């Protein structure tokens, strides 16, 4: 056992240093290699989608921290090798989890963060239109609105639940 480890170590001696590579996790590049101004712009953009893990909420593009600088460099290298935005994000997600993605995926529970504001917009717009129509009707709003005593209690309750009795 010990001998085997020593043998392996001896074999490894002289071998070039090698760091974990994106190919290990997301396969070969699926896009075209970028260079020049385009590379710089895409690096900045994708860096903006990644969270700097040692900072507090800043993106990799925005942070001056060394960790962020390293991550941004790696984004640049991957782009230069032809990796796509999707692959690069997937690579970082593989090691950091969804925590590293500043733009949440539209997936599972996370989709709610995109959907809820839209739902609120639709509901809100409906309420505004209803309010405008109701207020535009002459008699209802202007009357001092004491509930008519003769009204069916059931109807009164429905009214109360629907519109707040106004």
């Amino acid at each position, binding site marked *: 056992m010990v001998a085997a480890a020593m043998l392996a170590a001896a074999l490894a001696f002289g071998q070039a240093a090698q760091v974990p590579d994106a190919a290990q996790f997301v396969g070969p590049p699926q896009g075209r290699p970028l260079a020049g101004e385009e590379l710089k712009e895409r690096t900045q953009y994708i860096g903006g989608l990644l969270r700097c893990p040692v900072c507090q*909420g800043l993106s990799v593009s925005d942070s*001056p921290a060394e960790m962020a600088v390293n991550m941004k460099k790696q984004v640049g290298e991957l782009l230069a090798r032809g990796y796509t935005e999707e692959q690069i994000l997937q690579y970082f997600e593989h090691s950091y*989890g969804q925590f590293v993605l500043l*733009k*949440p995926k539209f997936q599972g*529970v996370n989709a*709610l963060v995109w959907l809820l504001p839209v739902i*609120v917009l639709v509901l809100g717009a409906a309420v505004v239109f209803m309010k*405008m129509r109701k207020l535009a009707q002459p008699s209802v*709003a202007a009357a001092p609105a004491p509930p008519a005593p003769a009204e069916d209690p059931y109807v009164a309750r429905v009214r109360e639940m629907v519109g707040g009795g106004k």
Partner: protein
Amino acid sequence: MNATLGRTIILASLLVSTAGAIIAFAAGRTRSREGLKWAQRFAYAFAFLMIAATAVMEYALLTHDFSVGYVAQVGSRTVPVWVTIVSLWSSLEGSILFWGLILGIYIGIATWFTRNDYHEYMPDAIGVWLASAAFFSFLIAGPANPFLSVANPPLDGPGPNPLLQNHYLMAIHPPFLYLGYVGMTIPFGMACAALIKGRLGHGFLKPLRESLMLPWIFLTISIMLGGWWAYEVLGWGGYWAWDPVENASLLPWLTGTAALHSMVVLERRGILKGWTITLIQATFLLVILGTFMTRSGVFNSVHSFTQSSIGPTILGFLAAALVFTIALLATRIDLLESEGRLEGGVTREGMFLFNNLLFVLLTFTVLIGTVFPLVVEAINGKQMSVGRPYFDRMVVPVGAALLFLIGIGPALPWGRATRAQIRRALLPPIGGAILVSGIGFALGVRNPWTLLTLAFGGYAAQVTLTEMWLPLVQRLKRGDSFGEALVDANLGRGRRRFASYVVHAAAIVVIVAIAVSSTMRSDVELQMTRGQATTVAGYTVTLLGVEERAEPHRMSTVAKFTVAKNGAQRAVLEPRMNQYMAMREPIGSPDVYTTAGGDLYLSLMNVDIARQSVGVHVINTPMVVWIWISVIMMGIGGLAALIPHRRTAVTNYTPVVEPATPRYVKPEEVTAS
């Protein structure tokens, strides 16, 4: 000695505010004038005690009395005097005491201004203020006590958080933020009083509006100061990162702004009473939520105080305030009678409703984006982030829609309007839209969102400028002298209206400047040695050298650059790295050359003094300075609307003149109909 004195004062203020709140609510129930008088006295007493407690703390700080816990924690003999003075709000305990001070001052002033009026509402309002005061007294007395005695006082202390010492903006940003945050207690108390009484009379709208307007001004400016600070200190060349604490300051501003708008409709039409009250209450609740976010350590942020034990206490207060508010709203909102009604659809009232919808939508989006990671973690235990790309995507369209409303809203007449009227109002400003977006295109703007913003901005600017000066022009046409007309239309009677358009104009510039500065920036990262020059965005930047400077409280490595354009030197910039005793990593401090057109921003990335070489990030951002200037203009506009005009000071309320729309309905007529 100072510690004991401070603790005694705080205990007294806890007693005074609790007793005062009970007396005030009792006076509200019994409608006793004598009770109200006593409530007012207790309010003044609380203000006095808070001023006294702060005075003791400042005295202890300035005399370096390290037997006081807070002084031992943040004091230092080596820091400049101004740093010692502002140390009051540099750390958790002191900042809560500072909160108490501002709350005391607000309560004192608000009580004084309302001492002879609004007897129906004031007891309950004072009761709510003092209840809030009691909570903060409790915080100062217990969980966040700055007056703890230190058994063996050290000879010197570590000094306050280096970030505070690093830039003067950090000395003035917190006071503005607190003036904004804490001040929201006053309209909240008044809104609660209206609900408790089940009535919101027209006369009470003035103090409600004014007490909301004043903290709104401070909050507006403090949000800008926070962004400015981030820009000047953090070194990435941006001013807004959608950080949880930044969002926390924005949330109450959004609902507060919505409330200021719905209040205009309420004053004119007598509708939206319950809604306006709800917005004011939401504003205060969001302030408390924001305080929790900053102080609980639950959120990951550059601005938050880490490691604090008062999170659960503030959460308890938030829960109590929420329950109280919801109970009040649910039981009393139906008692607030609408007195008027809307006329027509696409009129100005409708625009106000859409304005409110958009502000509420923004509030919701920012809130959900900020707390969503907590929600997900609570549901499935997985961590996720919601950051700038999300907020940019979600907020930009709503911001553009709001800019659109700033344009068409004021152009439309109040009440019912004919199609022809609407057409006449809405078509001409298209000229402004074409003009401004055309200028932008000529200057190189190609981003469709930016061009759209410019078009909306141009449209809104034309409407705003027209409306701003219309009363003046009409009076001139009527034959008034220029001086008379100016005083009457813009400085005197019509000032509130004029001021609101000043705020709108400034808001237009802010939105346009944000759009342009965030989409048109260019940057380059360079490695330079002494004597080397480079050209960035038309400027020649030359590195003169790198040197070390020692100050008592820090060591700085300073790189000296000259900035020249067309051969003429424009500025000497000195971005630096400051190393403070208490911090391992140096804090970068960028330097900026500001012009009306844009900023040239230099931020050091690495320094090698021996080789006289630096890595520098050069960022060229157009229009940034207009954000700061315009937000200050918004504040000035707000203040102008607040200062009482001589004639209005006598009578309780003078309706705003609206010469553009002859169909103005006086509030009395509305009530009568």
